[in-house]
């Protein structure tokens, strides 16, 4: 595999993110918010793709790891940062990334804590246990008064900008890509394809699964940190089962275990609700004359359309939107 190409891509993305962030002052704030939301989704979907898509361990608790990261970094920047007496630039460019890394590490610890005991379980059982862990994390946050409890955590500084979101997104996609294309990384695919055969070939399947959970949760933690400093407000309800499902849907629509497909699906699914909202505020000219037809109904129907789309896609194109062929299994 041509590593240098991927590294050049990474470099290019980072520079692009830097340039974009430098001119972000002149971009419409609503648009900026949506675009950064897209970046966070890309990080989430790519990291879950490592666990669900490449390693084949169906996890329904990604929002939980995201929550761990979000709360960790938010606590660091709201409680610890003010005591340091640093100036705002230093806080945003030095302290914030450090808080993100701590957030990622803590989320990774949570991921390992889930991954390690759950490895005895397979398929549906693993799915439900990860779901359970996610819900436990949410209920814990709801009951911790130190982080705002059910009221949520307010006053998180909005440090997230285009550079941090897209830098992280590029880094996530690159890491997952590079990992999968390394000798070591082939092991993840082997575990997903046939666990018994992988074990028979002498692969330590347990180690691969734990690694996948650890790395996947690390990036989910980063995404959580970005999300916290993008919205400026955290609410445990935002990290419920529904959020996990949203991320799973991105991975599946993108085609499990496709790098670019999952990134596209993350972008598409984050833009879709916004696009439908925008469409809902327009109207079409009436071809029969008379008053223009309002598209207002789309606004209230957009979640219904979203779910219908999901069902239709599964009926018509279950391999995901961007899945070309089963290239990986060509040899068999």
């Amino acid at each position, binding site marked *: 595999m041509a590593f240098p190409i991927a590294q050049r891509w990474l470099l290019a993305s980072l520079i692009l993110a830097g340039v974009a962030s430098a001119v972000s002052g002149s971009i419409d704030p609503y648009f900026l918010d949506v675009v950064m939301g897209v970046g966070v989704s890309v990080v989430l979907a790519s990291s879950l793709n490592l666990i669900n898509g490449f390693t084949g361990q*169906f996890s329904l608790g990604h929002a939980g790891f995201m929550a761990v990261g979000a709360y960790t970094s938010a606590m660091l920047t709201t409680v610890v940062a003010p005591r340091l007496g640093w100036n705002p630039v230093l806080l945003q460019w030095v302290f914030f990334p450090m808080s993100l890394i701590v957030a990622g590490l803590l989320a990774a610890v949570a991921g390992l804590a889930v991954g390690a*005991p759950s490895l*005895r*379980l397979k*398929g*549906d*059982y693993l*799915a*439900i*246990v990860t*779901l*359970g*862990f996610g*819900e*436990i994390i949410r*209920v*814990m946050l*709801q*009951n911790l008064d130190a982080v705002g409890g059910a009221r949520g955590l307010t006053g998180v500084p909005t440090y997230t900008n285009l550079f941090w979101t897209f830098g992280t997104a590029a880094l996530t996609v690159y890491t997952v890509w590079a990992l999968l294309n390394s000798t070591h990384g082939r092991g993840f695919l082997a575990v997903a394809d046939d666990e*018994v055969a992988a074990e*028979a070939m002498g692969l330590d399947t347990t180690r691969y699964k734990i690694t996948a959970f650890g790395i996947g949760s690390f990036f989910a933690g980063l995404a959580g940190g970005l999300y916290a400093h993008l919205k400026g407000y955290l609410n445990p309800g935002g990290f419920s*089962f529904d959020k996990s*499902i949203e991320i*799973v*849907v991105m991975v*599946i629509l993108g085609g*499990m275990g496709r790098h670019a497909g999952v990134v596209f699906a993350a972008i598409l699914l984050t833009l879709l609700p916004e696009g439908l909202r925008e469409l809902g505020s327009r109207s079409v000219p009436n071809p029969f004359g008379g008053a223009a037809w309002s598209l207002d109904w789309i606004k*209230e*129907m957009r*979640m*219904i359309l*979203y*779910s*219908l789309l*999901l*069902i239709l896609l*599964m*009926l018509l194109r*279950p391999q995901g939107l961007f899945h070309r062929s089963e290239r990986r299994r060509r040899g068999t």
Partner: protein
Amino acid sequence: MTEFLQQLLNGVLLGAIYALIALGYTMVYGVLRFINFAHSDVFMLGAFVAWYSVEKLGLPTQSIGGGLAALLLSMSVCAVLGVVIEKLAYKPLRQRSTLTVLITAIGVSLLIQNVAQNSRLGFGPNPRAFPALFPSQQLHFGALTVSTHQLVVLAVALSLLGLLYWIVHHTRTGTAMRALSFNATAASLVGINNDRIISFTFGLGSALAGAGGVLYAMNYPSIDPLMGTLPGLKAFVAAVLGGIGNLPGAALGGLLIGLVETFVSGTRLSTFRDAIAFGILIAILLFRPAGLLGKLKVEKV
């Protein structure tokens, strides 16, 4: 002691409702090997059908006949709905991977929730007060207080569990269901119409979920389109806890979750009660990965 008995009773009631829902999950898993996420929304619809039958169709409240009619009506509507969902969404996916069906189920669940939340097409997002279907009265047994509604919940839940047991173990259809869940290919070889049995299973499970919804709403008389999510998740946990695909396991799991949740609610940890169900699940699965009554399948190569 009285308080203990009171909590025990509440726990058994909640557990019986969870058991009803869990049975639907477990039966569908038994025949199709996938988690029917839309089950918790059928549960919600059950409660709404009963609400409509009283508020719009004018069935009498506070009467045994009216209550039973509402219950039967919502069970039948839910059964039909379950079959329709199966035919439209899951049947075309029969030969596809479990994951595809799982995502479709999530899609169906989202669809029902969103249509229900839409004020023009469904019920609207606001919670509604659930009427007293059966005569409500407080009965006193010594220091113990029991409402007639609680007795109804218990009686209905137990008779439905009994009925289900009878259907599964003493009718031809039930035998076919068990055969199908044991080995689908072999079942069709001996002349069982798999599609019909699967539809029947969906209908039966959905009817139980509908009944569960009505009973749940009688205990917690405020209903809204998202009311199914948490009880559904817990019932699902109950099904896995007992060993998914195993009917007595689902009943046992439901009872266990209901009891523990009620007792935890009585302590200082009450705000954690939604996490408890999952805590137990994880603890048990770590020691018995196939659930309490489930059998671990040995993988042959």
